[in-house]
């Protein structure tokens, strides 16, 4: 291979004028984490809500929840981001559209909302599955004690359902982080975009991608470890020890 390796590239000053190429990557990482975390909160809130209403004994809420999930699951994330970023401002009244276009950090907000909605459909699927996995007697027992439906969900069903779905939620969280890289197409300068930029400025493509790869791997390990800890922390003695 006639490729000239230069690992020292990361210590060289970046063309941005401040800091080194390595600092460039770190700034990208910060945006990756910020976007991923915000989108995840959005996805958890919307997804839980939709997941719950899909388990209610009400045709309309179930129908709405199903439609929501199908809509956000069956369009690629990249296309959804384009819809939010390019199409939405044209469809709303002109003054709002203008405001949207001129919003500072528009690509960040679009990414949070777009990835948030996209992931919320998956979260909703998990939440629904978690609730359905509980024995039917649990909700009956809650109602039999005189709890309202809302109270039964709040105190009986959801605490168990979320514990059951914690492992799949962990991988959905990791997916959210990974999906932030799709937002480079609408101008979010996150980690992958930074690696790409280093390649364009310095032509040291493999060093840049190797560094980004290692950072993603470490981020994954860190989050996985944190979630394992959380799983142990909320684990209920005597429940599900057969596994």
């Amino acid at each position, binding site marked *: 291979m006639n490729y000239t390796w230069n690992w020292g590239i990361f210590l060289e000053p970046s063309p941005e004028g401040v800091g080194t190429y390595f600092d460039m990557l770190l700034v990208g990482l910060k945006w990756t984490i910020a976007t991923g975390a915000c989108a995840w909160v959005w996805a958890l809130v919307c997804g839980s809500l939709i997941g719950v209403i899909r388990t209610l004994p009400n045709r309309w809420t179930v129908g709405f929840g199903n439609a929501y999930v199908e809509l956000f699951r069956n*369009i690629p994330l*990249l296309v959804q981001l*384009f819809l939010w970023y390019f199409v939405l401002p044209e469809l709303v009244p002109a003054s709002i559209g203008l405001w949207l276009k001129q919003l500072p950090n528009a690509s960040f907000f679009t990414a949070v909302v777009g990835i948030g909605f996209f992931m919320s459909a998956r979260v909703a699927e998990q939440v629904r599955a978690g609730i359905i996995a509980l024995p039917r007697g649990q909700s009956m027992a809650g109602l039999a004690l005189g709890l309202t439906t809302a109270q039964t969900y709040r105190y009986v069903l959801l605490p168990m359902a979320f514990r059951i779905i914690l492992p799949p939620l962990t991988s959905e969280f990791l997916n959210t982080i*990974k999906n932030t*890289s799709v937002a480079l*197409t609408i101008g979010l300068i996150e980690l992958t975009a930074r690696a790409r930029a280093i390649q364009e400025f310095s032509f040291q493509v493999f060093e840049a991608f190797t560094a980004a790869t290692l950072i993603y*791997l470490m981020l994954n390990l860190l989050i996985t470890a944190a979630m394992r800890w959380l799983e142990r922390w909320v684990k209920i003695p005597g429940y599900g020890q057969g596994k």
Partner: protein
Amino acid sequence: MFSDFDFNVIWRALPYMLQEGLVFTLTLTALATAGGIVLGTLLALMRLSSLPFLPQIAAGYVNTMRSLPLVLVIFWFYFLVPYIGQWVLQSDRPIAVGAFASSLITFTLFEAAYFSEIMRAGIQSISRGQLMAGYALGLNYRQVMGSVILPQAFRNMAPVLLTQTIVLFQDTSLVYVLSIPDFLGAASKVAQRDGRLVEMYLFAAAGYFLISFTASTLVKRLQRRIAIIR
């Protein structure tokens, strides 16, 4: 606003969108699925084997791929494949690889990691008694796997494999970052040429939705049928 929504834009772009864009997307999906399942099954067998090092190698590959964003992997292979080609063909300069070949290699290698996890679960869902019964009949490892374990695993996992194929179909839209005219790329080209982003992106979204939704509805039906047979 919707008032100046121009269906003619879509109508004029339709032949290009379907013949170029959709054909690229569907071909890439089909070939990458086939390659991904073959490679993924091999990875799963490696991971479950009792030979030294094989499980670790397979696990390392699968876990690394699954930790990385697809966009980064697309960039990786886009730049790496020419060098690999050079190394394989012993030529003196990097080999120019076409957009389609580059995407196909990327998606096959990337999705193999996900398919391998599905196949591993499928193989593990078959009771050990099956394996023993196979060996007791005098079959060897290849035969037991090929005619006893894998057919059952494929059958059990068929809906999950198909669902992953739908994910792969949607993922192919990311070749956009290489400016390749797949379904989305074609829409984007027309959108920018004619300045009709609203029409073209909404049309692309509708196209993806129609195909994914139909496919996932069929998968659900298949799932129910399998559930009844069991």
